[in-house]
C-alpha cells in the first residue's frame, strides 16, 4: 500500500543527496574529467573495473607503481576511501 502510494505521489521526491563516493570522486574530475570521463590526455576512470581501479590506487599509494602525480595524491586516502573511489568510478558509464 505504501509503496503504491509513493509511486503515485504527485510530489517529486528528492533523489538521494550526493554521498561520500561522489564527494571523494569529484576531486579527481579536475584531471580525469566529469564523472571520470576524460576528453584529453589523462586516462578516463569511468567504467573501468573496480578491481583494476583498486589495485592501481593501492599500488600508487604504496609506491609499487610509479606514476607522476598519482603517488603523491593516493597517499592522502585511507583503504576505505580508495575502495569507495574504485566502486564509484566503476559504476559510471564510459
Amino acid at each position, binding site marked *: 500500500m*505504501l509503496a503504491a*502510494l*509513493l509511486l*503515485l*505521489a*504527485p*510530489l*517529486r*521526491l*528528492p*533523489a538521494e*543527496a*550526493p*554521498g*561520500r563516493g*561522489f*564527494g*571523494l570522486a*569529484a*576531486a*579527481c*574530475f*579536475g*584531471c*580525469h*574529467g*566529469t564523472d571520470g570521463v*576524460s*576528453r*584529453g*590526455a*589523462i586516462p578516463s576512470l569511468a567504467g573501468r573495473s573496480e578491481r583494476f581501479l583498486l589495485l592501481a590506487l593501492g599500488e600508487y599509494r604504496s609506491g609499487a607503481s610509479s606514476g*607522476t*602525480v598519482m603517488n*603523491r*595524491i*593516493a*597517499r*592522502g*586516502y585511507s583503504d576505505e*576511501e580508495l575502495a569507495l573511489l574504485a566502486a564509484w568510478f566503476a559504476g559510471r558509464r564510459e
Partner: protein
Amino acid sequence: MRLTRRGFVGAAALAGFAALSRRLPAAPPARVLVVGGGYAGACCAKYLQRLDPALAVTLLTRPDPYYTCPFSNLLLAGRLGLDELEQRHDALAHAGIEVRYGEAIAVDPVAKRVQLDDGSALVADRLVLAPGVEFAFDALPGYDAAAAAILPHAWEAGAQTVLLRRQLEALPDGGTVLISVPPEPYRCPPGPYERASLIAWWLRRARPRAKLLILDAKDRFSKQALFREGWQALYGQQLEWVPGSDGGRIERVEAATRTLHAGFGFGPYRGDVVNVIPPQRAPKLLREAGLTDASGWCPVSPLAFESSRHPGVHVLGDAADAAPMPKSAYSATSQARAVAAAIVAQLRGEVPAAPVYLNTCYSLLAPDYGISIAAVYRVADGRLTAVPEAGGTSPLAADAAFRAREAVFAAGTWTSLNADAFG
C-alpha cells in the same frame, strides 16, 4: 516546507493520498544564484543543476567570451592563439541553468539580493559568489589601470595577454624583459615563473641576445628548486631571478619610462617590455558587502565555503581565503563541486559529507617540459589542512621523458578543467 522521505511516508499514511495532494502544493524549487562564471562559478552552477535538477539555478556573469588564464602563458611564447583560450557559457544554458549576462554592482548578503548595472535585481535563497580577484591599483604607486595599458599585467587573460605578446614581438634583440611579482597571496602562485620560463623559451629562439629579469617581492617561491634546476639547464644566463631582499621588491612604477624602482638603493630597472603583476584582493563587490576581512579576502568555513560573516552566502575560487589551498583553477573547481554537493544536502535538511579537496598545479618550463605540485586537503579542527602524508612536487633530476609526460598531463588537465566547468 521541505518534506523528508520519512516525513512524507508518515504524513501520507495518516492523511491518505487524496487529502495530502489537496493540502500540499509542490514546494517551489529553491533558488541558487551564482555570481561569476569563471572556473569556480561555472563549475558550481553546473554541479548544482546536475545534483538536483529541481533547483532553480541562475548564473550571472559578464558577457562571453571568457578566456582561460591557464595556458595563456603559451600564447606569450607564440604557441597558442587567443581563440584557443576561449570559453563560453552556452552549454550550461542548454543544460538548464539560467545564464544571465551582466554586471553585478551590489550584493545584499542578508536579503540574498544582487543588484545589476541595468537597474534590475536578482533574489535567491542562497548566493554563491565567485567573481575572482581585483587588481589593487592603489597598492603599488604608479601602477594603475592607465599604467596597465602601457605595462600590461596580463594576469587576466584576453586583451592584456595579446598586448603583452605584441610588445614581445616588437622587442629588439639585446633588449630586456622585466617581470615584477607581488607578495602572496595572488592567483596562481607558480604562474609568474611559468610565464618567465615560456617567454625565455621564445627569447632563446627569436631574440637570443635578449635578457629576462624576474623582480620578485618574495625570497622563496612555489616549486623553486624545480624551476631553478630547469632554468639552469634550459636558459642559463638569459633568465635571472632577483629575490626581494636582493632588490627584487618593487616599490614604485614609472610607466612612461618603463622603469621599476626598488627600495634600499637597488635598481632602478628599465625594461623594453615590462610585465607588472600587481597585488590582488577580493573584488570591491565583496568588500562593499562586508564579506572580506583585514586580509582583503573573504573568510569562509572550510565545510561548504560559507561566509564566516553571512550565513547562506558561499564565496569560492580566488576571492575566498582558502589558505592553505592556492588560488588556482584546479582548487576553484574542487571547491565548486564540493560546495554544490553541500548546498544540495543542506537544502534537503541533511548534513553534507565531510569534504576532501584536491589541488594539482602544473607549470611548463618549456612546451615539452612540465612539473607539478599537488596536495589533498581535509577539514581538521575546523580548519582546512593539507594532509601531511600526501602531496608535494615532482622529483628533482628527473629525465626528459618524465618532464615531457608531465607537459602532456598539463594539457590534459587544462582540457578536463575546461570541459568540466564550461562543457
